[in-house]
Structure formats: C-alpha cells, structure tokens
C-alpha cells in the first residue's frame, strides 16, 4: 500500500504514540480505489494524465538537477496543453501537480486562471484545490484579483459552511486593499452568523481587512463587540485578536471599547475570561501540558496590556489577575513560560503596582538562569526594554547578564551586549569594561564596530580618571583593530592632547603597540604615530615611567626602523601613511640628533621624506615634496613649524551642526563661542592680563566681554609684562559715558588722536579721511573709509574699517603698518585694547618684520553689541635702526559709521 516508505521511520512522536491508524487512512484507500476505477473507465474518452503521486515519484527519482528539469518541463508542457484544450475533467489533478512544481521553484503562473476556473466549479474537490492554488499562485495583480473577488463573493454566499470557510480563508491570506473594500460588507455579515466555524474565520478576515484598509474599521465595531460574550474559544481568540488590532490602530476605538463593550466593560470581562481559564479544571480540549488554552491566555494578556497602558483605572482592575497569572503558572514547560513572558510584558507596560514590577523583574531573573536558551533570549530582550524604566531592579542580575556574553548563540550575545552597555554606570564601569573588553577581543566582526564605539562612549561618560580612560581607549584600539570607527581616532588624540600628565604614559604604551604588527589595526597606527610625532621626546628622554613594560634604552634608529616598516608596508592605508609621514618629520625636531645633519638619524629621515616626493598618491607626494623643503631651503623654519600642538579643547562640531539646522540664529551664537574658546584657553595668561587691564576701567554698564590677545605673538613672557604696562596706561581712561559720542576732555596720553568725532563727517575735513562722495551712501556700503592712526619715524599705520552686512555687531579692522623709512623694522608688535563693553579679537599678523617700503597687515575683529562709540588704546613696539622703540596711542576718532 505504501511502497515508497523507507524502512526507517521519520516519526516525530515517541514510539508508544506511534499509531498508523486513522480514519483518513481508510478514506485515502477508498479514494484510490475509486480513482483507479474511474481511470479505467475514462481512458476510453481520453488518455488520463499522470497522477500527482506518480509525478512526485518521477521527480524524486531524478538524480540530477538537469534530469529533474526535464521531467518538470515535459509535465509543464503537457499541463499547458490541457489548459488550452479546456479539459475540465483533469483540471484539478493538473493544478495539483502544478502546485507541486511551483513549490520546487519553477514558474507556474500560467495556472492562475485555471485556479479561478476550479474555484468556479461546483465540485468541492475542485474548489478546495482551486482556492489552494489561488493562495499560492496569485500575486496582487489587478486583473486577476477582480476575477477572484467575484468568485469569493459568490462563495461567501454559499449554503455550505466549508465553501464559505474556504473563501474566508483565502480572503484572509491574500486580501488586497481593493478586495478588502469590495468584500468588507460580506465579511461583516458573516461575523454575525449563527455558525461559530464561520464566525471565527470572518473575524480574522475582518482583522486582515482592517490591516490593509484601516478606514473600514468602523463598520465592524458592532459585530466585534458581541464576540467577547462567546463560549467558543475559537471565536473568543479571533475576537480578542480583532479588538487588539483595532485598539492598536486607533485611540478612538480604544476609548470606545473601554467605555462599552456589549453589556459589560471590556477590562472586567477579559479579567473574568482569564480567571476562568486559570481556575477552571482540566479540560482536555484546550489543555497544553497542564495549561489551559495558552493561546487564548496570551492574546488576552496582550489586549489587557493595550487597555491598561497609561490608564490608572484599567491598570488597577487588572493588577490582581496579573499577579495571579504570574504566581500560579506552571513553569516547567515552554507553555508556562510563554504566558509568564507575556504577563511580564503587560506588567511592565501598564501602570502596575511596584510590588508587581519587582515580581516581574524577578521572573525575568529566573528566566536568565533557565536551561532553555529560548527563555534566556526572551529574558534579555525584555530586560532591555525595561532597563530604562527600572535600572536598579535589572542591575541585580548584572552578573548573569555578563555571563550571557559568552553564550554560544549569537542572538543572545547581541542582546547581552546591548543590555550590558545599558547597565554601565560610574560604580561598575571598571568591572563592566573588563568583561566587555574581553568580549570585544573574541567578538565576531559584526559586533566589533558597535561594541567598540559603545565602550568608547561609556568610557567617555563614566571614566574614573584620565589614565584609566586612556588605557581603555588603547585596549579598544588593539582589540577592535580596523573595525574601530574613525571618530575614535580623533577623540583618543584629543584626550591625549589635553591630558598633559599622561602624555608620557600614552606615548610609551602606544609605542609598544606600534612595535607589534599593526597592519590590521590602522586606527591604532594612526593614533600611535600622531602621539609619537608630538611627544616623541618623552619616549626617549622623558622621566622613567613607573610602568614595568616601558621601553628601556630605546634609540632613535629603532624608532626609524618601525616607521620605515609602516611607510613601506602595502597593508597600511594612505591615511595611516599620511599620519606616519608627518609624524616622522616632526620627530626630526623632537629627537636631539634631528638637528645634527651628520647623524644617520637625520639622514634617514631626509631620505624617507625624499622618496615620498615621487609617490604615486598625490597627497603623499605633496607631503613628501613639502617636507623635504623643510630639510633644505627652509631648514631654519623647521623647528618653529613643527612645534608641539597646543592642547586641544573638546569641540562638539556635531552638536553645532544639529543646532544650526534647527535654528539658524543660534548657529551664529554657537559659532562665535566655539571660535573664541580655543583662543582664550590657548593663551590664558595674556588674555586674563588684558581682562585685568580693562577691569580697572569704570563702567556704568558692565557687559560680558572677552578681549583676546594675539596668541602666537603674545606667547613670550616679556609681553605679559608689557600688558601690565598697558594696565597702567588705560587706568586714566574715563569710560563713564561710553554710550555718548562725547570725547573725554582730559586724555593725557592722546598724542596722535584725531579731532573729535563731531567733526569727523564734516566734508571739509579730508585730511585724515578719504571721505569722498561715499558719505551719503555710507549706510548702504559696508566699507568705511580708512583712517591713518599713526605716522611717525618712518612707520605709518592705517586702519581700514569694514562692517560685514550679515553681522551688524561686528567691525573688522584691517590694520596695515607701512615702513616708509630706509631701514628694516624687526620685532614689530602691535597691541590694542578696547573698553569692556566691546570684544576684541586680534588675528595673527602677516609678519613681525617690515622691510623698507614693505608692510605688515593684521586683522582686528571688534564686536560691539551695545552700539557704543568705539575707542582704542594702542601699543606699538619694534626695533628700528636706533634700537627698540615703544609707542603708545589712543584712537577715538572712529567714524560713527563704524559703531552705529
């Protein structure tokens, strides 16, 4: 009877339950007998096609894919021909064969219309196969869908429940939006049917219709309400599913169901159904390993969750039953845990009592210890969702969670990693990072990028000290190699730069890492070369490190050898080589032998740099050419150019970008503050001196000000003393009325001052101003005529004023100092001070040396928020023919246009 069954049995159930008897078995043998009889008869009329099981046997007998293809193609050709001949007798069998062929992956869409013909047939067998074919073969193509909509409409009105059932099942599987609209009213009618078999299927059809076309929800509301008063579990579960979908879809419907549902309120009604399920005794029909209808329980728990969300009263009404389910459910099998899992989700989501929440987290804690990996997985997943609600409760399970980082299952590891990062805080950072770094070392490549940037972020937030922070960053760079994201390189460099105390340690640690092979750790190589380039002197001549592994007696040549390896290795990226080349050039000034042209170290560096002058990569070539000039023509500039970078300040360019996008105005503010800060801190000594200097001036309206000196020029200590002089100098300045344009009458030091501002715009006074016809149009033009503020002993200083139209508060002063004498002026230094209501920023001068008839320029940015009249004190120093000269001046003749 079953000749194709192999000797070994694939049975799923244990042998004692292994029964081969079933009514269906008899039915099959009867059917086969009839089939054979019929075939004998019908061969007279036309040749019978291959039977389905014969075809399957033929296909399975094919030894190669090509052989299989031949069998299938032959059969497909035959099936096509029967379709053309409109053979209705064997259509059912042919479609069945076609469906099998379709499952093997062959095209079968030519059978679509034949399926529709089968559906239209009055025979139940035809309909059954026809609908099956429709569900498998039909896509959402409009024309075919119109045809099937008509078939469905017919069968939804059939008198046989199973025909209606087939139609509903098909509609539920393949409903397109158009189909849903066309058939919604039929489905709504069937939802009110007396027959439970039809009612449950119609409810799920309604569920699918709402999914596709949410606007149709309203018409199903009345019929849905009564579904919850059912006894039949099938109708109940489909009803709950439908209501869940409706409530998730629309808040109005949610409120509608909360208010009235049949004769009872929905929450107590659901609670009652759930209670009956738990308390009712054993019912064989719905029992699953000792749990009564887990499917229905889970669906109800989920609907309760949606009803209780943000609703204190509803939550109150379900607290008890949730506690009951949580404590009374048998947990030895998967079913029980399924229900507990759903209960925990509900408890966490509604406004539940705190005791209940503790119970829920404890259930998850037990889940984490479960032998079943599936249970562990859902526990981690759920903890991740709740960790932000109740961190301390989750913290208690930290060690178990860390244990899950070692799980063989990748999904569990991923969840455990995410959860671990959510649990990191100041207290546990050291321990957590130890575990996470271990995890990072062994992690799959897919985890490395995410894990490393999370470690970097956590370290940034919770690092106990800088040393630990640096150690962690280095470990990440080593462990994650090339998977480290680029921003980690930047922030590590920044941290090293701003942490002076740890630079010795950093350079030593990075050197040790660099000595090993770093071809798969490009970011590490970049950080290391940058750091050695900047602080290489600490590596060789720094104080002996307390670190036992610190390199001892390292020589310059050893360092060069490693650099040579880095630059020549084809595995290193161009970016790494750029870092390395710059670093190498910097090393020439860090190491003592770097200035000894005869030393082999110096020659080697020169040689390496020179070879890059002909590199194929344009960027490297350019660097090679530029740097090699520093060893030749501009040898004298090299030490100054390659000086150590000033400590970097934490910059947040991304934050600015976002703010700028959201609000155009604040961007300006941000830009300003970001632009000013680094300069302020870069030269803290002189800026504070200048602030002091102005602090003594008496102001009626003290305004925040920051007067910034010129950092590179003022960096020498002698200037700080000069600033003290300036302090004295400005002491006498009367600023009591900064807003008026009147000029202080007693200006003791005013030597080069121009006539009072009241006269500035007199057209007659052209001696100092190039006021031509521009005066009338001056408010429109932003360029304000230049003024000569100093002209003495062969030095002429001119201010060219400019106000950018987009920032009205800003005045740009282009200072140019011209040497009109015969001799070169050296050590030229121009300093300025303004009252506190202004902000002054001086950019670097073009030079400190003015050759005869040459000039030096410098830009001053004055921010004048109060629109007060501008005055300025100047100090000019230079060394001329007759030795050092120091001049002071006051400018109070700025044109009104410059500040109004």
């Amino acid at each position, binding site marked *: 009877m079953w000749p194709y069954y192999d000797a070994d049995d*694939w049975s*799923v*159930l244990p042998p004692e339950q292994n029964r081969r008897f079933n009514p269906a078995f008899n039915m099959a043998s009867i059917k086969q007998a*009839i089939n054979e009889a019929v075939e004998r008869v019908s061969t007279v009329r036309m040749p019978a096609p291959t039977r389905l099981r014969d075809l399957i046997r033929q296909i399975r007998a094919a030894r190669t894919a090509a052989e299989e293809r031949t069998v299938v193609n032959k059969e497909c050709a035959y099936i096509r021909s029967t379709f053309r001949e409109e053979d209705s007798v064997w259509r059912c069998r042919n479609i069945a064969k076609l469906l099998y062929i379709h499952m093997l992956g062959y095209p079968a869409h030519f059978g679509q219309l034949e399926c529709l013909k089968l559906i239209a047939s009055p025979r139940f*067998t035809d309909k059954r196969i026809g609908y099956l074919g429709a569900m498998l073969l039909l896509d959402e193509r409009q024309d075919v869908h119109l045809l099937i909509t008509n078939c469905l409409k017919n069968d939804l009105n059939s008198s046989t429940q199973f025909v209606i059932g087939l139609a509903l099942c098909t509609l539920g599987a393949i409903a397109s939006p158009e189909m849903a609209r066309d058939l919604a009213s039929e489905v709504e009618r069937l939802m009110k049917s007396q027959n439970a078999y039809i009612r449950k299927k119609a409810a799920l059809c309604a569920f699918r219709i709402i999914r596709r076309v949410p606007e149709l929800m309203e018409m199903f509301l009345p019929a849905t309400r009564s579904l919850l008063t059912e006894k039949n579990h099938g109708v109940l579960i489909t009803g709950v599913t439908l209501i869940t979908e409706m409530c998730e879809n629309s808040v109005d419907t949610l409120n509608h169901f909360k208010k009235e549902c049949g004769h009872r309120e929905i929450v107590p009604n659901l609670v009652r159904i759930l209670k009956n399920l738990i308390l009712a005794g054993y019912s064989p029909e719905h029992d*699953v390993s000792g749990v009564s209808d*887990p499917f229905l329980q889970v669906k109800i728990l989920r609907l309760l969750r949606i009803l209780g969300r943000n609703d204190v009263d509803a939550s109150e009404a379900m607290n008890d039953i949730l506690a009951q389910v949580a404590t009374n459910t048998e947990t030895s099998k998967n079913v029980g845990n399924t229900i507990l899992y759903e209960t925990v989700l509900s408890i966490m989501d509604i406004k539940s009592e705190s005791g209940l929440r503790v119970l829920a987290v404890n259930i998850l804690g037990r889940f984490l210890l479960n032998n079943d990996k599936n249970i562990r997985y*859902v526990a981690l997943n759920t903890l991740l969702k709740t960790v932000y609600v109740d961190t301390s409760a989750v913290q208690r399970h930290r060690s178990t969670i860390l244990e899950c980082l070692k799980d063989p299952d990748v999904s569990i590891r991923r969840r455990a990693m995410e959860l671990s990062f959510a649990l990191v805080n100041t207290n546990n950072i050291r321990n957590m990072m130890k575990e996470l770094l271990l995890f990072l070392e062994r992690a799959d490549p897919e985890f490395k990028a995410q894990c490393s940037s999370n470690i970097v972020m956590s370290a940034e937030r919770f690092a106990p000290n800088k040393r630990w922070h640096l150690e962690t960053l280095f470990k990440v760079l080593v462990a994650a190699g090339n998977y480290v994201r680029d921003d980690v390189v930047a922030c590590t460099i920044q941290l090293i730069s701003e942490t002076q105390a740890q630079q010795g340690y950093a350079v030593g640690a990075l050197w040790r890492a660099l000595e090993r092979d770093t071809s798969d750790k490009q970011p590490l190589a970049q950080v290391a070369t940058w750091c050695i380039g900047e602080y290489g002197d600490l590596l060789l001549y720094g104080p002996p490190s307390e670190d036992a592994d610190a390199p001892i007696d390292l020589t310059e040549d050893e360092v060069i050898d490693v650099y040579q390896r880095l630059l020549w290795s084809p595995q290193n990226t161009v970016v790494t080589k750029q870092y390395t080349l710059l670093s190498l050039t910097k090393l020439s000034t860090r190491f003592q032998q770097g200035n000894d042209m005869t030393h082999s170290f110096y020659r080697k560096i020169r040689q390496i740099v020179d070879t890059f002058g002909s590199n194929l990569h344009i960027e490297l070539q350019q660097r090679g050419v530029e740097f090699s000039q520093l060893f030749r023509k501009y040898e004298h500039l090299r030490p100054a150019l390659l000086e150590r970078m000033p400590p970097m300040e934490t910059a947040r360019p991304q934050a600015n970008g976002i703010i700028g996008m959201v609000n155009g105005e604040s961007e300006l503010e941000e830009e300003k503050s970001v632009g000013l800060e680094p300069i302020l801190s870069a030269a803290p000594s002189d800026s504070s001196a200048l602030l002091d200097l102005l602090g003594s001036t008496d102001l009626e309206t003290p305004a925040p000000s920051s007067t910034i000196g010129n950092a590179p020029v003022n960096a020498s200590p002698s200037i700080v003393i000069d600033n003290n002089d300036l302090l004295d100098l400005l002491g006498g300045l009367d600023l009591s009325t900064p807003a008026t344009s009147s000029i202080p009458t007693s200006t003791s030091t005013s030597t080069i001052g121009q006539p009072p501002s009241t006269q500035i715009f007199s057209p007659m006074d052209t001696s100092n101003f190039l006021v031509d016809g521009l005066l009338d149009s001056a408010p429109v033009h932003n360029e304000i005529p230049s003024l000569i503020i100093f002209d003495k002993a062969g030095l002429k200083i001119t201010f060219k004023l400019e106000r950018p139209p987009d920032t009205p508060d800003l005045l740009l002063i282009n200072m140019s100092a011209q040497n009109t004498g015969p001799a070169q002026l050296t050590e030229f230094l121009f300093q300025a001070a303004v009252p506190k209501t202004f902000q002054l920023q001086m950019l670097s001068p073009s030079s400190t040396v003015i050759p005869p008839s040459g000039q030096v320029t410098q830009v001053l940015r004055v921010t004048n928020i109060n629109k007060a009249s501008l005055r300025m004190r100047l100090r000019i120093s230079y060394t001329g023919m007759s030795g050092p000269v120091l001049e002071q001046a006051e400018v109070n003749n700025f044109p009104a246009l410059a500040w109004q």
Partner: protein
Amino acid sequence: MMQFMLLFSRQGKLRLQKWYVAHPDKLKKKITRELITTILARKPKMSSFLEWKDVKVVYKRYASLYFCCAIEQNDNELLTLEIIHRYVELLDKYFGSVCELDIIFNFEKAYFILDELLVGGEIQETSKKNVLKAIAAQDLLQELVFVSLWKDEAVEGALREIGLL
C-alpha cells in the same frame, strides 16, 4: 501576525510555504533561499530565534523537517513555538505519526490543515479536536460530491467490483 511559514528539509528542500503578506514571487524565492541557508547554518545549541531584517524568525526542527515562521516585533516568540508544535501535532494526528514523505506526497492536505489552524496569519482555533473534525468533514464532502457526480454505469460497476456499492 505571522508573515509567512516555511517547511523545509535538512537538505534545504522546500516542503511547504504559506505567505500571509503579498510579496512578488521573486522576493519570496529570495527570502526563502536566504532563510533556509541561514537556519541550516545555525548550530543546534543556538536559540530558536533569529532577528532577520525587520522580522523575528522562529524555527524548530522536528525530525528531518524544519518549521520556520516569521513574526512581527510585537508577537510572542515562545507562543509561536507553541503554534508550530500544535501544527506538528495536528499533522501527526491526521497522517498518523507523520513523516516528511507524508507531507511531500500529500502536501495539499498539509496546507488544508494549516488553513484550519491559522487564518490571515493569526490562530483561529485552539482545539485540536475541532480542527481535525473540520478536516475530516471536508475530506468526506470531497468523496461524497465525487461519488454523486460520477453516477455513471461504468463507475457504478467499478465501485461494486471493489465492494463499495
């Protein structure tokens, strides 16, 4: 809501596919191929869940057959395992200790049983008895209609021959 269910063998041969979402045929084939490869590559010690694209994939192996379902983010993974198990139990009851070959040669029956358990990707009946009753009734209907349609002398004769009439 379940998005689709796939049954495939240890050799990666598809045995059953049920789609509750409308995808073009090409995409269905791609998804099927990718999922089968991914799942077959997983080690037995791993969990039954897989985060795959925007769906959660729940699978379980019964003898030589893998049962694999794709569900949405809100769905209960553990319950999906129960649904799979329920389907296996139904197949087992219907075929009588089911094996892969039963499903190959009677794939249409396997679909019919699934359609009595799920509609539109949601469970419609939680009682095994009711599902089997509905299937048996429809099988009977198929035979009855069959017999009544072939009221042909030759058929009658043949039926008598085997003792059915």
